[in-house]
């Protein structure tokens, strides 16, 4: 069975789109969202329906909450030797005060904005966030700050501007500080501290959030072991002391206790950076202090390891708010320890209900999760306990049963939280690998079939020999075994494992079939190479500068995608490469024009090959006009020759105009550009003149007697009409066996092939690159959007290729049908 190269390319790209989709599914794990959009009402207390007192919201535990967030506060800055040395007051609080200390583990990417979101929503960033955040910086998800504002709490914020962007209308008072100037580490913090005295004295607020940036800036400048760190930590310690003493003195007047939270958003690596998943970067300090906490004197515990997302639930409970819907954390139980048993169980129940709702929404087989079973059981026990409590039963029994229920709940919460967060926390490496394998196999197939596709026949053989099918079955069996092993061994849920088995089998069959195709293509190439070496024929293929430039440009473009600033300014790369290509074409055409005889004989002797590599460059940059000029130079004379010589310059000028028409990117986006100048209201006259001129130009172009351009356009349009009439059966093609049609079909197939090849090289390279850079600082803000764009580009390519192939196929079919009828 033989296949045209256009159809082959279209099929390859379609398969590649599948591979990219699989990769994307693994790279952007879907966020865990409960199905009901409006917040569900608080679950009633499981008390066999007797009392109505359980349905109302519980009173807040704390009157005032101060969150002191220090950017880059690694755990050992507080609990390690540095803390002892530079933060005496904090160390006193940790060791002897009424406080609970934890090491909170942040999930990668350990970058400020996703961490802030995790702290206030308790959820982890997912695919939807990336798409949604392209346009709207405000945080729309359910979170503690929004809930607090809705509940009428007065929230004040001082510090990093990111918060102000996330919550534009929530704070009654705020002062944002930009973190743009990394070299500044005093002003950013003084900007926050200068408000403290006034605010602490005033006391007309409920929540105060402070975000200090200085420590992180010092880390970026000189690393975590620099002497500046100690000074900064001492400063932070004194600020903490000020806040704590002021809160304590206020508490004596007010009745409800207050809560002071000291936390970091992410850690700091040994070189001072952050963003990746190393232990230093994910471990942050978390310290909760309140007079409500009871503490036995002399008791020293090492800080417990918890998740950073747990803080959102804790804050919500502490402020008497419902826990954010999508929070995957469980609240920090030590905070509750001094409360009555009924209250404790009530809070545990609320948290467990919230988590189980999330689990139900995300996992279709949630009943089988051990956490869910535990939750159901503890809920039943809880109901029994409440009944006993209301009957005023023996206090001893009640206490023992209560402790048992509490233990049950804590275990259930732990497994529920793990089950929910494992779905979003990590990349699904298995899907990513399979997707990458598919994409790379398609690329290899395309690369290996270049000689055949661009050869004379432009047809490819589909390998259906017995050896191939044997290989296919073998590979399929092996992959299936691997699939079973991976799916049974993994504790985390993987997308491919959750698919039904025919679908997963289809994917695996695709992978193995592609493998067979690649292998057979490889052997064929080897055999051909051997044959060629045995009877060497003078090969007509020579590398011209243009071929080299095209290849080097593609390679350079792909390499530049490894740097985030090049992705941000990708248009600059394109403009630069297009200008270079134009200049090279210009050079070529001038040489062909002035040194026609001395130049390479390629232009006159083998127009087919010349056309072919022109078509490659045409496909890269779609500069048809410029591309055509050198290859058809010999057949032209006089006016056309000058047009051919001038056209690269024309294209260059147009590119320059295009560049100044719209400033985009990041660095120069603010610069004035032609587009804004024209659309501004005071330049309406210029705009009208310009549009009138361009309309006139179009009119003139259409009107002029024998402009080749208008002729071509007219001819194309008329041809389209004619084809339509033929398809409906009113007309007939006048030709019987025209070789011209065949050759145009062939050229279309080849162009299709080249296009597919050239768009699949960057995609596959980029996928590998992104996998390697998945812990990069800018992975969410720069690389992921670009990945989406690349996937979309591939989809468009596939659609175009399929369209072209279908058109070519239908015209050929009509042709052959006509021949048969005759």
């Amino acid at each position: 069975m033989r296949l045209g190269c256009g159809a082959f390319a279209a099929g390859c790209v379609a398969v590649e789109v599948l591979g990219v989709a699989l990769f994307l599914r693994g790279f952007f794990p879907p966020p865990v969202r409960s199905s009901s959009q409006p917040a569900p009402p608080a679950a009633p207390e499981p008390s066999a329906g007797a009392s109505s007192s359980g349905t109302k919201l519980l009173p807040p535990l704390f009157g005032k909450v101060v969150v002191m967030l220090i950017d880059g506060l690694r755990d050992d800055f507080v609990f390690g030797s540095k803390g002892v040395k530079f933060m005496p007051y904090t160390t006193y609080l940790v060791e002897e005060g009424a406080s609970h200390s934890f090491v909170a583990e942040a999930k990668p990417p350990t970058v400020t904005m996703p961490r802030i979101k995790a702290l206030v929503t308790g959820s982890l960033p997912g695919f939807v966030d990336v798409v949604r955040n392209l346009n709207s910086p405000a945080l729309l998800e359910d979170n503690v700050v929004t809930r607090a504002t809705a509940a009428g709490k007065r929230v004040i914020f001082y510090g990093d501007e990111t918060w102000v962007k996330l919550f534009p209308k929530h704070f009654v008072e705020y002062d944002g500080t930009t973190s743009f100037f990394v070299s500044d580490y005093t002003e950013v913090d003084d900007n926050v501290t200068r408000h403290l005295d006034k605010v602490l004295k005033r006391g007309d607020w409920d929540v105060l959030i402070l975000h200090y940036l200085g420590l992180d800036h010092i880390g970026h400048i000189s690393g975590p072991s620099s002497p500046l760190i100690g000074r900064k930590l001492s400063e932070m310690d004194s600020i903490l002391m000020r806040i704590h003493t002021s809160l304590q003195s206020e508490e004596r007047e007010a009745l409800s206790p207050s809560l002071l939270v000291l936390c970091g958003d992410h850690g700091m690596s040994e070189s001072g950076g952050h963003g990746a998943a190393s232990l230093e970067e994910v471990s942050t300090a978390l310290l909760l202090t309140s007079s409500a906490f009871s503490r036995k004197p002399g008791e020293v515990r090492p800080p417990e390891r918890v998740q950073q997302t747990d803080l959102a639930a804790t804050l919500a409970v502490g402020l008497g708010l419902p826990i954010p819907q999508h929070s995957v954390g469980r609240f920090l139980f030590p905070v509750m320890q001094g409360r009555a048993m009924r209250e404790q169980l009530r809070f545990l129940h609320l948290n467990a209900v919230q988590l189980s709702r999330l689990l139900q929404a995300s996992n279709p087989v949630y009943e089988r999760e051990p956490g869910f079973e535990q939750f159901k059981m503890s809920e039943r026990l809880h109901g029994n306990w409440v009944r006993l409590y209301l009957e005023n039963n023996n206090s001893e029994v009640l206490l023992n049963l209560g402790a048992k229920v509490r233990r049950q709940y804590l275990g259930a919460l732990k497994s529920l939280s793990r089950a929910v967060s494992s779905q979003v926390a990590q990349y699904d490496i298995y899907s990513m690998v399979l997707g990458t394998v598919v994409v790379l196999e398609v690329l290899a197939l395309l690369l290996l079939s270049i000689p055949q596709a661009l050869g004379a026949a432009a047809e490819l053989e589909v390998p259906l020999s017995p050896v191939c099918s044997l290989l296919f079955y073998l590979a399929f069996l092996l992959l299936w075994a691997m699939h079973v092993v991976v799916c049974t061994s993994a504790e985390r849920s993987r997308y491919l494992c959750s698919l039904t088995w025919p679908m997963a089998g289809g994917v695996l069959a695709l992978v193995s079939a592609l493998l067979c195709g690649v292998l057979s293509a490889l052997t064929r190439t080897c055999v051909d190479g051997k044959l060629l070496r045995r009877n060497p024929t003078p090969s007509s293929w020579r590398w011209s500068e243009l071929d080299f430039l095209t290849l080097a440009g593609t390679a350079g473009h792909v390499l530049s995608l490894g740097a985030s600033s090049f992705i941000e300014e990708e248009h600059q790369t394109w403009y630069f490469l297009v200008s270079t290509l134009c200049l090279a074409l210009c050079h070529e055409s001038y040489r062909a024009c002035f040194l026609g005889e001395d130049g390479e004989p390629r232009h006159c002797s083998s127009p087919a090959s010349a056309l072919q590599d022109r078509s490659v460059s045409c496909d890269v940059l779609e500069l048809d006009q410029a591309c055509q000029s050198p290859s058809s130079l010999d057949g032209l004379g006089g006016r056309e020759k000058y047009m051919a010589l001038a056209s690269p310059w024309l294209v260059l000028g147009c590119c320059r105009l295009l560049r100044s028409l719209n400033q985009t990117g990041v660095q120069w986006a603010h610069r004035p550009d032609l587009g804004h100048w024209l659309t501004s209201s005071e330049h309406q006259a210029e705009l009208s003149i310009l549009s009138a001129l361009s309309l006139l130009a179009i009119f003139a172009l259409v009107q002029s007697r024998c402009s080749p351009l208008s002729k071509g356009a007219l001819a194309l349009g008329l041809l389209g009409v004619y084809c339509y009439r033929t398809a409906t059966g009113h007309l007939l093609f006048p030709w019987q066996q025209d070789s011209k049609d065949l050759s145009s079909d062939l050229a279309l197939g080849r162009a299709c092939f080249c296009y597919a090849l050239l768009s699949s090289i960057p995609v596959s390279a980029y996928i590998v690159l992104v996998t390697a850079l998945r812990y990069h600082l800018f992975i969410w803000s720069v690389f992921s959007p670009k990945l989406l764009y690349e996937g979309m580009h591939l989809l468009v390519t596939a659609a175009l290729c399929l369209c072209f192939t279908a058109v070519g196929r239908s015209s050929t079919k009509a042709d052959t049908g006509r021949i048969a009828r005759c």
Partner: protein
Amino acid sequence: MKNIDIKRLLYTHLLCIFSIILSIFIPSVFLENFSILETHLTWLCICSVFVTAVNLLLYVVVKPSASAKRSSLSYKVTRFLKCCIYFLMSCFVFHVIFVLYGAPLIELVLETFLFAVILSTFTTVPCLCLLGPNIKAWLRVFSRNGVTSIWENSLQITTISSFLGSWFGAFPIPLDWERPWQVWPISCTLGATFGYVAGLVISPLWIYWNRKQLTYKNN
């Protein structure tokens, strides 16, 4: 014969490199606050003057083009004037090309033009010295298999490496490192200078390496 020629080529190239180094160090003796990055435009002027002077000197002393026939004074004068016009034209053409490549059109005109001047100094001036104002010869040298002596061969290499240097010099501009040399056109001029120096170093070595394979029509 050939080895002597290559040696002469090497010495002239070393002299050119020396002139560039001099242009970095001599002005700091006479001018206060002179540094390549801060007073970049001054350095550009001085460097281009130095390189031009050395090229002219070498042309007068070494006479690589070896035109034996005597010519009249008026012919020489017109030839010189033609060379000047060609140089200016090449400066303007380079300027236009830079603008087409994306250099600002209205702002920083002087910077762009001086970049064009220095690139012309590295490419056009040696061409003018060696080939004279003769477009056909230029096109011959810069097309495949059109070289007729090692001087033209080295000319080809230095010119192409200067162009490549300035081409690569444009790459750091969009990066967000915020270094002083990322400002237009400093990275490009530095790239062109490095490319020129690299070409000067590489070309004698390359010719020496390939002296067996190289056959010229005239030799």
